[in-house]
């Protein structure tokens, strides 16, 4: 259900086009926002429990009744969210007030509007643009501005350090990510998200899905390059120098508290979803079913998309609790001297493969 379809559906679209557009956008945006909120709760809970199992702990446990009973502690993330909302809102006296207040919103916007191009299912996409994946890559760079604003306006050397490192990291890792997507676009000849998924329909040898990850060895490598660059863009370990707890306390977000901090948190998780969603779409077939013939309906499509994305998010969480973190200059040299050359070679390779082997 795209915005365009919604506009056509409204009976008043002819007389008040502006109002109709506004309504249509709101009707699409509010569920996305709610989805991000609920998804963040789920992923926070998942991170706590998964990390606990990996670290031989028990994690959040329940001592109450209903949802908060037994060993599941399901209300823990709700408690966390409530706590963050109810906290005192502290703005340091020497901070730059306007920028300080504006920063979380810009970071969040960068992650939020990328959701409009994610194909949740065959029919469930807010705007099926013909520049879909390009749009997502472009828009997710908005977050950098917000981060630098946050670091600068806190008037705190630690935050400045964190913001500078973070900006350098995100901007650098955009390049291997974009180059890997170019390898995909070369094959699919379209940048539209639905178009990329359509290209991956069908099955090789009857059972292996025609996903781009299986298509040729260069896109196989491109998947890993894209995924790792995505993890770096989200500032997750092993690339979480900007928020390295044991070094810079909380990096760029040291001075934030309460709801503003919650916004940064939310946008980090939203970013994770976008990266995982794009990886699932471009390389793993999006909402397509891996089993030939069945589970093809739009409802099943939503299920397949969500499960592929959630699996990739699980892998990101797994990374965080396994690896130590890389130092800033090692990060940057890995990007510029490692990933970017490999991504460039990939592009060549895909072209040559396509020309020679069809």
């Amino acid at each position, binding site marked *: 259900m795209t915005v365009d379809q919604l506009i056509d559906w409204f009976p008043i679209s002819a007389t008040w086009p502006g109002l109709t557009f506004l309504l249509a956008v709101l009707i699409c945006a509010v569920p996305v926002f709610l989805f991000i909120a609920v998804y963040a709760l789920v992923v926070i809970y998942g991170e706590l429990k998964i990390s606990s199992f990996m670290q*031989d702990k028990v994690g959040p446990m329940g001592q109450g009744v209903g949802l908060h009973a037994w060993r599941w502690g399901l209300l823990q993330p709700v408690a966390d969210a409530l706590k963050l909302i109810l906290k005192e809102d502290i703005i340091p006296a020497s901070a730059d007030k306007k920028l300080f207040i504006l920063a979380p919103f810009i970071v969040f916007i960068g992650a939020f509007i990328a959701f409009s191009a994610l194909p949740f299912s065959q029919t469930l996409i807010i705007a099926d643009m013909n520049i879909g994946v390009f749009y997502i890559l472009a828009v997710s760079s908005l977050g950098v501005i917000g981060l630098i604003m946050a670091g600068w306006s806190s008037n705190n050397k630690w935050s400045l350090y964190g913001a500078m490192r973070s900006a350098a990291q995100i901007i650098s890792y955009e390049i291997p990510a974009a180059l890997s997507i170019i390898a995909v676009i070369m094959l699919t000849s379209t940048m539209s998200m639905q178009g990329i998924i359509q290209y991956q329909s069908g099955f090789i040898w009857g059972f292996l899905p025609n996903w781009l990850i299986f298509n040729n060895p260069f896109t196989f490598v491109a998947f890993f390059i894209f995924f790792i660059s995505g993890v770096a863009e989200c500032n997750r370990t092993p690339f979480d*120098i900007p928020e390295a707890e044991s070094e810079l306390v909380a990096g760029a977000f040291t001075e934030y508290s309460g709801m503003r901090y919650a916004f940064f948190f939310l946008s980090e998780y939203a970013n994770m979803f976008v990266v995982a969603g794009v990886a699932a779409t471009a390389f793993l077939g999006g909402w397509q079913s891996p089993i030939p013939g069945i589970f093809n309906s739009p409802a099943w499509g939503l299920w397949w998309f969500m499960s592929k994305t959630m699996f990739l998010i699980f892998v990101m969480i797994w990374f965080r609790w396994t690896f130590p973190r890389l130092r800033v200059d*090692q990060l940057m040299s890995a990007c510029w001297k490692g990933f970017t050359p490999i991504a460039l070679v990939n592009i060549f390779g895909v072209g040559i493969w396509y020309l020679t082997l069809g």
Partner: protein
Amino acid sequence: MVLNIGPQHPSTHGVLRLKVVTDGEIVSDITPIIGYLHRCFEKHCENSTYEQVIPYTDRCDYIASMNNNFGYVVAMEELMEIKVPERVEYIRVIMAELNRIASHLLALGTYGLDVGAFTPFLYMFRDRERILDIFELTCGARLLYNYMWVGGVSHDLPVGFVETVYNFLDYFEPKVQEYNDILTFNKIFIERTADVGVLLPEVAISFGVSGPNLRGSGVKWDIRKDEPYSIYERFDFDVPVGQGLVGTMGDCWDRFYVRVLEMIESTKILRQALKDIPANGDVHQALPKKIRPPKGSIYRRTESPRGDLGYYIISDGSPQPYRLKMRSPAFTALSVLNEISRGWMLSDVIAVLGSLDIVLGEIDR
């Protein structure tokens, strides 16, 4: 830019303040500012009896309390020429070595935490809990024991102690291999720590660095072998020395790896001690009724998990020490921080500080 790390900071291992002068990310000068945990230990000792000093020594290096006690009682017993029964000697060695393993586990775990590896920290603490349970079984305390007294120990070993420690050793030895797999030879960890903060042997000796820090630079010096005390001569164990396996000799990785190997050596000593410990004996036999050492002074060093722990005791014949000075190994280790981390990046300063394994209680006393 002048940055201030601490005194409240997640990875300064206590209340330590570091004044760092940076040029971008490169550090040009570090000044450690200590004294936040100064509790006038030495002045208190002048107003307490010799027995009452022992709990004070516990609280200096609170992570390796048994070894602190051990150093003090060894010095006192040499001053007073007391010889303790065999069983007491074996008990002391067992406790000291168990505490060495516990202290190294904490040092290695928190070091992993400093460089970003959250999981090994919890695994090592889980194993450290088992050691603390053994201590609780023996003397009732988990961290500060007041266990070793001049002339004996406070409590005899409980029933089933030997078996408990054997179980722990059987459980623990394969774990060290696990830690090597997950952290020591992890590529990212090696990149963070190899070739970083190289400590040359001459610099180390001039700065008075000792223990695993000195051994990581290739100098084979262990008080248990070179100036033996108690019954350490009877045990057969190696002294691991840094060899620059994955980088320069004397870098952070070497100091880390020396501690890992030392844990294995401690398990060897423990096994030998448990086999030979005399089955019976009164641990309170040689306790003097009143501690009145003859006039004189003594300086005695023992090997604590952090290095050479020295006690300089001056006695004037009364039941209270005239002067008691504790020479702590972490004090000297911290003084070398400026020397070895100049020219590196800010993240490396944290890595180097973690590898020196300091405890502020010992530095400030």
